[in-house]
């Protein structure tokens, strides 16, 4: 079974600063996907960024980038130039690369962006 661990229950960052959210996972699979999802107060989960395990290059999406360390089973999210709208819960998730698979989520990190 796969497990996903987010060790930071809460984080705070000032507007325009950079923050890094940590995620580690445990799996015996070699081929899989990793994700960061954002959940604002509206409750609707939104995909922030996706990483395929076989790709060595770290994924980036505008102000969001990841540091994927496959050997260490680490997958951190860096948010640059933080904005007030980034305030949300952030969930790290894992999915095996197979036809019928579910996402396994971590417990989340609550990020507060302050003025």
């Amino acid at each position, binding site marked *: 079974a796969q497990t996903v661990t987010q060790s930071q229950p809460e984080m705070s960052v000032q507007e325009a600063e950079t923050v890094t959210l940590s995620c580690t996972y445990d799996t015996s699979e070699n081929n899989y996907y990793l994700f960061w999802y954002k959940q604002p107060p*509206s409750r*609707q989960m939104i995909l922030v960024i996706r990483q395929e395990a076989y790709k060595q290059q770290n994924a980036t999406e505008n102000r969001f980038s990841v540091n994927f360390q496959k050997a260490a089973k680490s997958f951190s999210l860096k948010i640059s130039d933080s904005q007030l709208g980034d305030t949300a819960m952030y*969930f790290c998730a894992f999915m095996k690369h*197979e*036809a*019928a698979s579910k*996402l396994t*989520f*971590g*417990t989340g990190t609550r990020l507060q962006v302050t003025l």
Partner: protein
Amino acid sequence: GAGVSQSPSNKVTEKGKDVELRCDPISGHTALYWYRQSLGQGLEFLIYFQGNSAPDKSGLPSDRFSAERTGGSVSTLTIQRTQQEDSAVYLCASSLNRVTTGELFFGEGSRLTVL
């Protein structure tokens, strides 16, 4: 529809009553997932549908929980004889492809409170 629609948005019920939660996925999405999010917790997988069949229902916590999907579209999650520990937000998600790349589109959830 334009997005995943869930109803009711909020439901308060008395212990021992049955409840039905509905999910209307994005049109054309063949995969549908139910997750449960308890207060302060991550997302707990409940069941996955591909079309009308459920290849993975390993997350259903007890036989009081059941789900069905008809016409490859709308899904209903039923909880019989509700208990206080069933109180949570129930999230539905859908995705386009069977061999998914992992992007799940979530609804805003149904918050269930069992008194």
